[in-house]
């Protein structure tokens, strides 16, 4: 399963090479143009070169950590790359560096904590990673400063049509985009697997300037608070109830006509959908909207529980419906689109 391979690849912001290689292999020979640019975006065209360009963006990078130093006893100091909650870090198994060296994020045991210690999560900068070394020299031989660190998580299908894995944000968007690009289109579809979204949508900014699209769709794995203890008003999105269409976030407000078109198509064709019921967060739609003289954009996301944690959860029916909805939109703009 492509999604499984993508989720187990390591791709921190600026180090997306493994993910890019998988996508290159998957799409090789099945698209009309494929190149990567200076910042590492993988830019793929499907369909004719002329006509109103639609840019679809899914980001390859994931949040994680970078090795920032060594302790005398051979453990690793680390810093965050992108936003990870301190509450999910303690005691987790991780993979370090390109050779995927196993490590464990250390913590004092419960027995030794005082009541005050237990009041809040331990800050990430107070922790270190144990890689089973006993001296700084030994650790330095195995690991380099700046090496990526990710949670050690196996991807798996479970339950009725659900998947769990690391980095569903946004490998699930990458997998949606790959499926879309395997189909044939009569409008120029520019699929961009972007870099560095988690630290400010930097890849999308560069790619959008170069493609200069008329329309843009960000394909995301997005937040869901569909967990115990959250009342109905605060769920934001619910896995299994269809792709989540953005209403506004910190990066952009969707183009009204394009939004109405996407919602109308979903209703007309009986594709389940939900609105993303928050204005928090941002994604690649922002820089696409504001590139050059501007573009019409929307965001369509697959809801993911436990986002930015060791293991996220998503529904494959949402995935399928996301592919379907994007396809319906691309078909609908064959005759042109006036935003």
């Amino acid at each position, binding site marked *: 399963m492509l999604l499984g391979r993508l989720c187990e690849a390591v791709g921190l912001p600026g180090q997306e090479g493994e993910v890019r290689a998988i996508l290159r292999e998957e799409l090789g020979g099945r698209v009309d143009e494929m190149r990567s640019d200076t910042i590492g975006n993988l830019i793929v065209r499907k369909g004719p070169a002329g006509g109103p360009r639609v840019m679809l963006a899914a980001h390859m990078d994931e949040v994680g950590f970078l090795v920032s130093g060594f302790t005398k006893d051979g453990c690793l100091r680390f810093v965050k790359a992108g936003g990870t909650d301190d509450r999910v870090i303690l005691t987790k198994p991780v993979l370090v560096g390109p050779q995927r060296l196993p490590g464990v994020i250390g913590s004092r045991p419960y027995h030794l904590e005082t009541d005050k210690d237990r009041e809040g999560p331990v800050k990430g900068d107070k922790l270190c990673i144990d890689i089973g070394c006993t001296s700084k020299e030994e650790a330095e031989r195995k690991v380099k400063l700046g090496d990526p660190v990710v949670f050690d998580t196996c991807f798996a299908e479970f339950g009725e049509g659900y998947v769990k894995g690391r980095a569903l944000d946004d490998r699930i968007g990458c997998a949606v985009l790959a499926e879309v690009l395997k189909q044939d289109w009569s409008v120029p579809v520019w699929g961009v697997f972007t870099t560095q979204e988690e630290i400010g949508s930097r890849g999308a900014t560069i790619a959008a300037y170069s493609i200069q699209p008329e329309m843009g769709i960000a394909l995301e794995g997005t937040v869901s608070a569909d967990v115990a203890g959250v009342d*109905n008003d605060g769920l934001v999105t619910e896995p299994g109830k269809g792709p989540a269409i953005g*209403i*506004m976030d910190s990066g952009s407000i969707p183009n009204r006509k394009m939004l109405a078109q996407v919602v109308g198509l979903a209703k007309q064709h009986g594709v389940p959908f939900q609105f993303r*019921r928050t204005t928090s967060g941002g994604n690649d739609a922002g820089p696409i909207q504001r590139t*050059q003289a501007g573009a*019409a954009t929307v965001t369509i996301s697959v809801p993911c529980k436990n986002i930015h944690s060791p293991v996220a959860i998503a529904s494959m029916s949402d995935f399928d419906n996301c592919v379907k909805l994007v396809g319906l939109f691309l078909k609908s703009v064959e005759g042109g689109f006036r935003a």
Partner: protein
Amino acid sequence: MKDLIRKFVEAYGPSGYEDKTRAVIQDEVEKYASGISVDVLGNLIALKKGDGTGKKIMIAGHMDEIGVIVLSIDDNGFLRFSNVGGLNPAVVLGQRVVFENGTTGVIGSERVDDLKDLKLEKLFIDIGAKNRQEAEAKVSVGDMAGFHLPMVDLGTRLVSKGMDDRIGCAVMALAMQRMGRTPNDCYFVFTVQEEVGLRGARTSAFAVSPDLGIALDVTRTGDTPKSITMAVGLGKGAAIKVKDASIVVHPKVKNLMTETAKKHGIPYQFEVLEAGGTDSGAIHMTKEGVPSGVISIPTRYIHSQCEMVDLRDVEACVNLLVKILEGPVNL
């Protein structure tokens, strides 16, 4: 002048939903423009052509106003919402809001014992619906509402929602009406989505590619009881911006404004705004850079439904803008 301001400020138009406001403004300015267009983000661009010997000047005022966006609708028909632009929970509690289709609601709150706990999450909109079904017939998740109150005429001072920045749009419309022959190609851009990050100005400035940028926007004052320290006051003239959080005004643009005001006896004051930004923040960083400045309309109680301006300041802003645009610009 009051009628024009009333039409502008009372129009509906939170960020991204400026269509109705744009129609009102377009109707007013079309007759003074040699060309008019609307771009993909919704910016209204009205050109007043010069005689071909001058500069290309972009004048920007934003059409959008702050508002609220519906996040969810509950079984009893209450709407939870988030802010569009900067919104103080204490300012919106108990106020009326109106949606684009005319649906009106009031903002209520959960029980809050300490005002410090008053957060937007505690508030809801009541549109008088008895249940979810009735509410969903009128509004949808993602719909936006703006403040709903008529403008009040206090004589030389006016109070309304939406002065930020329809008063800037009004200054631009009045300048288009009054200005005579000019060497400069003047692009009057009524921008979208300023309140959420200067977005319309960014893309329109790229398209216009001006030699000089001038934003017209409101600025706060320091002339109310125990206010923050700020030199700007109501009735003291057009405020020539020196700096805010988005721009350090190009000294030559500041001088151009100051010299023009002095030459024509237009009352002016300097403005240093510690927080906040305007469209010039986006314009001056466009392409290889655009010298830019701001003429600000002093306004009390910004981002409330009771924004207050003084007509003498508005008049001074119009005069200053007209004189700058009519004259040769040498930077």
